[in-house]
């Protein structure tokens, strides 16, 4: 990809990516993050409280977007200086080998000084926007 500050402009689109989320990913994320909320790993309980299935941690989806932006910007996760999202829909993760898929795309909202840009990101799962107002400021090479 090798996006550089000089090679992009307001409106430049980031190449879209898809990320797969399986139950195993949620178990690993629960362990690594310390978020053991039962709706993220127990289908029986998730359904009993009215959810369609086990749902992904919102922060797991946000982490995928962080990765998406950092990889595009040269692979340095430390280049992301400001990052915010609104969680607008849940990502149900079925108990099979396919899991759920999130589609992530983005475009440059603004070029800032110091080689920084603000990226507006869209993340969708099952046709629904799972994040809105997802914005990251990242420093480019």
């Amino acid at each position, binding site marked *: 990809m090798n996006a550089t500050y000089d090679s992009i402009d307001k409106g430049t689109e980031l190449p879209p990516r898809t990320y797969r989320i399986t139950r195993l990913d949620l178990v690993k994320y629960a362990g690594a993050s310390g978020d053991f909320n039962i709706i993220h790993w127990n289908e029986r309980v998730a359904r009993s409280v009215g959810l369609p299935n086990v749902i992904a941690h919102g922060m797991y989806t946000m982490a995928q977007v962080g990765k998406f932006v950092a990889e595009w910007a040269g692979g340095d*996760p430390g280049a992301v200086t*400001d990052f*915010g*999202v609104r969680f607008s829909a849940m990502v149900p993760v079925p108990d099979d080998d396919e899991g759920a898929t999130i589609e992530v795309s983005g475009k440059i909202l603004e070029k800032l000084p110091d080689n920084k840009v603000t990226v507006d990101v869209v993340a969708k799962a099952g046709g629904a926007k799972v994040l809105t107002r997802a914005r990251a400021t990242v420093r480019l090479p």
Partner: protein
Amino acid sequence: MALNPEYAGRVYGPGEPYEVSRVKIADFADAIGEPSQLCRDREAAVKAGYPDVIAPPTFAVIIDQRSTKAAVTDPGLGLDYSMVVHGEQSFSYSRPLHAGDVVVATTTIESIRTLGALSMLVTSTSIDTVDGEHICTATSNLVERGA
């Protein structure tokens, strides 16, 4: 149950210092599928200008949620955590977290709003080194669905 609006402005912490470790960063990077060697290989991180391996940007949620727990479980606030969904999250960094950082977190209840059956709680958590250097401010918006 409506949240107690008088709790807006309350400050919790700083709590016990949190030591950022290489192993924890690598585990977190593995869990989210972050491929960067800057999260795993100290030499690569140093070559890129960092003191040690760096944490991915959402790593700070671990420290944020530990700190925010003091606020959300405060009985006087009246939050039913079983009815809470995460509405928004943001991070604003002065620099990346790296292995070896020893940080403290302080959480402020920024606002409390009730709209019909929904209550909204906004918290901000400042994450600073024990020497007082600001690293990150994490802002969370939690929504409590009324019963």
